[in-house]
């Protein structure tokens, strides 16, 4: 149903509705309202279904599903109310998810991050390199524009929208290409949220292997968290560590793309060589927050009594769940399929082909590097 709604953004800039503070407040209210409804449904539906044939099904449906579904319904409503573009500044998936992940860090022991860092870095290096090259090759085979090729390769191999933004800055892509890549990431990520935890269960993967597969495979960080949350707490922890490792490598890819486009594609006269400064600029700083929160949480748990630690970290986890719910609602609210309709099949084929390769190589690496790993 969302697919049939034309984009408000098709209006030329002069006709585009203004985004002002009242609209921002209204947008935040809508996101919070939908998030509260998701939280409420998660409590009342299993209770209402108790003793009925739907009891098991209702118990299995968790907050990410309610939040994404309500976000999609909200998307249609705000479109028809003419509000979608006006409230866009309040729909901050990336901010909500990154804050949620910093809070998640507090419940992950720093030793676990240190223990998982080795295999996570190795997996990220192998997976990013192989999937990037496969997407790059497919893009060349199907004759995609060089910049779109770079955007899609970065998005499918690293971390979705964030990587597409970093790559777009590196190769000076057109804003239409960025909007297109971001839409494609979300369209592919949505089914993965449900498919991967189901497949991991079907294949009997351990929480660590399932987490490594989910974290290495699903492109956008919000969707990784949603899938991890559906699969279980231990799976979520490993998926987050693996995804955070991939996020940390955005800068390296952005710098490499900047150099490649400056010296090989556009052959810019006197172009400056990208340096460490650019690497730092592109580094996702929330990864530092995630590690800092883990260090603080680990210190706290070792300092206070077990009961107090459980109660305090429980409050942090409640806050984390709220931010994740707001991020999942925002995923639904942000989905725009209008851009994809006119794009043709080639970019979709490149992204889809690379995503399938990611699925297979990611599973192989997760089994190879995380079998026997205990959370």
């Amino acid at each position, binding site marked *: 149903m969302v697919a049939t709604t034309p*984009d408000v*953004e*098709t209006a030329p800039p002069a006709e585009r509705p203004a985004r002002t503070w009242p609209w921002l407040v209204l947008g935040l209210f809508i996101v919070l309202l939908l998030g509260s409804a998701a*939280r409420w449904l998660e409590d009342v539906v299993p209770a209402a279904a108790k003793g009925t044939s739907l009891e098991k099904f209702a118990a299995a449906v968790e907050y990410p599903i309610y939040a994404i579904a309500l976000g999609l319904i909200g998307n249609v409503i705000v479109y028809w109310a003419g509000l979608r573009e006006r409230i866009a500044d309040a729909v901050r998936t*990336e*901010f909500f998810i*990154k*804050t*949620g*992940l*910093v*809070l998640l860090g*507090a419940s992950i022991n720093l030793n676990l991050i240190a223990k998982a860092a080795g295999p996570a870095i190795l997996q990220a290096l192998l997976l990013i390199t192989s999937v990037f090259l496969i997407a790059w090759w497919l893009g060349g085979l*199907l*004759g*995609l*524009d060089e910049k*779109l090729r770079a955007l899609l390769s970065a998005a499918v191999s690293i971390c979705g929208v*964030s990587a597409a*933004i*970093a790559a*777009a*800055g590196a190769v*000076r*892509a057109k*804003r*239409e*290409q*960025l*909007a*297109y890549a*971001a*839409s494609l990431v979300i369209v592919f990520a949505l089914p993965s949220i449900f498919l991967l935890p189901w497949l991991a269960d079907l294949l009997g993967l351990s929480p660590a292997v399932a987490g490594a597969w989910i974290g290495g495979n699903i492109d956008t960080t919000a969707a990784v968290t949603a899938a991890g949350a559906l699969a279980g707490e231990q799976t979520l922890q490993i998926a987050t560590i693996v995804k955070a490792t991939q996020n940390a490598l955005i800068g390296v890819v952005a710098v490499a793309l900047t150099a490649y486009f400056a010296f090989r594609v556009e052959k810019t006269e006197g172009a400056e060589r990208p340096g460490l400064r650019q690497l730092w*600029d592109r580094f*996702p*700083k*929330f990864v*530092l*927050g995630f590690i*800092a*929160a883990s260090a*603080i*949480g680990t210190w*706290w748990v070792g300092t206070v009594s077990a009961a107090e630690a459980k109660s*305090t970290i*429980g*409050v*942090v986890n*409640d*806050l984390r769940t*709220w931010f994740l719910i707001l991020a999942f609602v925002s995923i639904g609210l942000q989905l725009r399929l*209008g*851009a*994809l*309709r*006119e*794009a*043709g099949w*080639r*970019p979709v084929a490149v992204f889809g082909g690379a995503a399938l390769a990611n699925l297979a190589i990611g599973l192989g690496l997760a089994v190879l590097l995380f079998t026997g790993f205990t959370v």
Partner: protein
Amino acid sequence: MSDPTPRPTSPGPSVPRALRAALTEDWLATAVGLLLLAAVLTGVIPTGLVP
């Protein structure tokens, strides 16, 4: 082969603006997350306050 470059209908935000926003969001999310953690650990946000 027809023009393979997509011409989407949705222009979206400009690339420099999106890049700046992403970098600002990174720091903001880190600050908000750590502040909330500090508020919980120091008891400013007590148990039972978050629904």
